[in-house]
């Protein structure tokens, strides 16, 4: 069996203490919630914290609450709970689809939405044991200084593999972070990520994700289509999150965010421009060419590399198809009720908008 290396574990009393401990111990410390990402990676020596700060048990992180500002989900809420929540399912179908598609039932019972937002980027030159990586020569993500899949690359090309992050971004969600002194800040979900597989999060090392805030329900239809080999367990090989706002039968705005095509979730909402102002019926039935054109434009900036399962050309082709499917799925959903898109900040994550 692979052994877990020795480490200390501290159960934080509250979020502020967790942030304080992180700040105090610097890069020796990491947060642990469900541990489903962290623990296997510690066994393989990919992550080498000597102190784990437990936050999974904190009641502060375990809430799902609604207000007129939207729905707030604590970072410690498990994926299984999100997946089973009918209210969330009705309001944010894409988000719930994404949560339900993560790994397997057992891992969703332990895995949290906060851990999923922060899940490590993946690469099949990196997700290997210490001995394997040593045999090949280490890479810049851990212990080395070159990128094994793209040796000329100046940054790490490990793949953003969170299923829920692209939907959160498409919905214009925000993330609440708590710093070492207990200070809070709210950040657009899109701004949590940056284009480097090594330092893929923009949060400060001492910051804890406290919650995810979804915009008020109503207004956005949403869908998530995930590309992978085995639907019972595998990480995404590509995929698309789509959020669609309408006024009557007319598309007002459409956001598209791709997953697993590069080091961060890729917002390609600009590609949705041709849809804005068009009737839903055109998307659903009539204009096949229109959807195909949008999907082709959406995946144009995606540059999957040979560092995940199956051929990268196939992954890109399938991501294009995922975009089409996600748009169609979203368009087919019942008309959203509640406030119109504009009243809950359709601008938060940019996106193509009727102008």
């Amino acid at each position, binding site marked *: 069996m692979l052994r877990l290396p020795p480490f200390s574990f501290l159960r934080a009393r509250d979020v502020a203490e967790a942030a304080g401990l992180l700040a105090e111990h610097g890069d020796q410390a990491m947060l642990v919630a469900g541990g489903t990402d962290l623990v296997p990676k510690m066994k393989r020596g990919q992550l080498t914290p000597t102190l784990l700060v437990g936050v999974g048990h904190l009641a502060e992180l375990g809430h799902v609450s609604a207000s007129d500002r939207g729905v707030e989900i604590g970072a410690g809420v498990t994926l299984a709970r999100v997946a089973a929540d009918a209210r969330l399912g009705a309001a944010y179908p894409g988000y719930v689809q994404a949560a339900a598609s993560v790994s397997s039932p057992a891992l969703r019972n332990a895995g949290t939405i906060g851990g999923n937002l922060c899940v490590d980027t993946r690469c099949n030159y990196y997700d290997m044991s210490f001995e*394997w990586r040593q045999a*090949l020569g280490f890479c810049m993500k851990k212990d080395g200084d070159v990128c094994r899949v793209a040796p000329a690359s100046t940054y790490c090309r490990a793949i953003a593999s969170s299923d829920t992050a692209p939907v959160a971004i498409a919905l214009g969600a925000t993330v609440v972070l708590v710093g070492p002194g207990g200070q809070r800040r709210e950040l657009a979900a899109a701004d949590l990520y940056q284009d480097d597989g090594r330092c893929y999060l923009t949060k400060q090392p001492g910051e804890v994700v406290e919650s995810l805030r979804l915009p008020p329900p109503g207004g956005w239809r949403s869908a998530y289509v995930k590309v992978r080999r085995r639907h019972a367990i595998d990480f995404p090989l590509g995929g698309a999150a789509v959020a669609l706002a309408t006024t009557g039968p007319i598309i007002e705005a459409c956001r598209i965010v791709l997953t697993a095509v590069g080091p961060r979730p890729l917002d390609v909402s600009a590609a949705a421009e041709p849809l804005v102002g068009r009737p839903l019926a055109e998307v659903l039935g009539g204009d096949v060419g229109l959807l195909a054109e949008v999907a082709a434009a959406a995946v144009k900036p995606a540059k999957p590399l040979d560092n995940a399962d199956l051929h990268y050309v196939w992954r890109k082709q399938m991501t294009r198809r995922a975009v089409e499917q996600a748009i169609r799925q979203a368009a087919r959903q019942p008309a959203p009720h509640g406030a119109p898109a504009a009243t809950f900040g359709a601008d938060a994550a940019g996106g193509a908008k009727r102008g």
Partner: protein
Amino acid sequence: MTAVDTPVVPWTGVVGRPLPRVEAAAKVTGAIAYADDLQLPGMLFCKLLRSPHPHARVVSVDTTAARAMRGVVAVLTGHDLPTKYGIMPTCEDEQALEHEKVRFVGDPVAAVAAVDEETALAACRAIQVEYQPLAAVESIEDALAPPDGEPLHDYAGPGNVHRLAALEFGDVEAGFARADHVREDVFFFEGNTHLPMEQHSATAQASDGQVTLWSSTQNPHYVHRALAKVLGLPMGSVRVVAAPLGGGFGGKCDPFSHEIAVCKLALVTGRPVKCTLTREEVFYTHRGRHPTLMWVRTGVDREGHILAMHFRSVLDGGAYGSYGPASMLYTGALQPTTYRIPAYRFEGARVFTSKAPCGPKRGHGTPQPRFALEVHLDKIAEELGIDPVTLRRRNYVEPFTRTVNWLRVTSCGLQQITDRVLDASGYARRRRRLGHGMGFAVSSYMCGAGLSIYWNTLPHSQCVVTAGRGGVTVFCGATDIGQGSDSMLATVAAEELGLQPGAIRLVTGDTGLTPVDLGSYSSRVTFMAGNAAREAAAKLRQLLVEAVAEAEGRSPEQVQVRDARIGSLGFEEAVALAEERFGTLATHGSYTPPAGIGGRYKGAGVGPSPAYSYSAAVVELDADPVTGEIDVHKVWLAHDIGRAINELAVRGQVEGGVCMGLGEALMEAQAYRHGLVKQPSMLDYKSLTFLEMPDVETILVETVDPEGPYGAKEVGQGPLLPVIPAVVSAVHDALGVWVDEVPVTPDKVLRALEARARGRDARYGPKSFPVVPYPPLVKVAPPDAAAPTL
């Protein structure tokens, strides 16, 4: 002689009934102790240091720092275990720990015993090995090219070629000359691994120069031999106990480094030592399916009768010999057991590459050529405009005949399994629409190899049955690897003695306590150990019957044996009586395959078997023309089992075989990149999950083999074989393209569709077959077709 449909024994109290396996309760409750569950007082833990290079000279190994570490008790290098070994006497090319050169990433170079695994691992990391890297040999093409520097081994050759064979039976050129139609195809079958749920584990204990090894092994007898040789001990000083296995599939058939290392460490330290491999190490231990490139050329007449066939293969063997020479010959041996091939030429080669060694995996050497052959016949049928099933039926071998390569065929239910699988699946009436397809294929497999791995005069299986106040005990070297051999032994003994299987105690797979059975490979256990157990138990029954008959003043024929009664006595009373009459009740039985079931040419040792099982599959699937993804809906599998000793266990084996076959057909690949295994984890090495596993309808056909125990034949391996070509055939049925390379992944399907869209050949697969330095043909006269064989 023809097949009969009625059972050959009058009382079938247990044979043929779908009974739960004898160890089922212990397995599902977790009570069973697998090798890694063994805990001994004072036990040390062993870790192996493995090579980070695909090919390198070992310049020096410095263990000073490791030995100085607290908690480290002993460190071994290749100097401590210099004797070479290997499962086949012709290629004993392995060393438990290599001290001269390493040949793949993962090749073991040192072993540490320490108070816990963490310390052992830290000590491994503290060992300083100086390597001088050599050119890696990454592919069949690399291996066939003149070596860049030194070849992997200094025996065999030329270069990195390990083994070659070239055989011709009958006049192949004349056959082609007479043919109305000749077709050639090239195929590639990617390597894959066994993926047992249980990682290999071994624990050794030594005292007074005697050593006992408990190991997850399929073949305790062969491990026993290797240990005696490498440790330099008489066989009587070594005992190997096969622990209950969490799956083998051929992956636990060789003697392994970790088994040898723990024995040596136990001898050196005087303490028990355990080594359990990590999942990644299991990928290095491997001995899995050989990646195989194949070329086949067949000549047929207008009706599709085969007139001549020429089959070429080249196998990527990885770094060591293992069972390789046999694996290679198997790629040519069994084609004639399903189809009448009047003239047949086989040229085979196995090459060394700097990868984890390949070896026997379920179907050993035959899934690759079966895939090639069946798909090739489909293509011929398509060209001739003949229904592919009809074309096959025209060529099916008849029962009780001999093949062109001298294999004796006895019971053969090819026609019946074909009828039944077609009926059940509705293959002939299938509705055609784009993206939906059905495929059909057949296969055969051996019920045990006719010859042992090494030449010896031992019976292939031996069994002792005792009865006394402690009940009935069966002693047999056979090893239950999850296939149900314990249940089979208990059922056979119970049947003969009028008992239920639960009443039989078993002592199996223990070289210190049980007579030799050669092992759980080549689907030999039911046929061979079953016959041995039946003989032993029947002799015991005879003693009981005689004693009771004498006491009751009746003739033995009048004494009924059934329902735990012998005549008018209860079983225990009868045992007491017989013990009084005959002394200790211990009987024995053994099995040796009959002579003359194969030919007399070099290479004739591979292929002969006392019987062959037959399987036919129909696969129904959707293949998406946009994504290339394949969704298998259902598999119908008809299997000529001879006779099902335990129907439930047989169905379990069929379903397991179908599952593994689909995995190989659709996703499994032990692939390499930069000399390293690309997917050494269960998440990254893709195999079927329950979600992908379709419905399986199993149809058992009983042809009652004249020599199998109660007419039984094998089921452990055969049903996997037709599944793979049936998938490929169904994909063609659905989309009109051929994927001539396994696994059939979605990207390959799309590449084939693209090729067709561009007006090229509507296929994906290897373009050509390399030039292989096959030796001159050995010409073997085929048997006289007219002569009866039995």
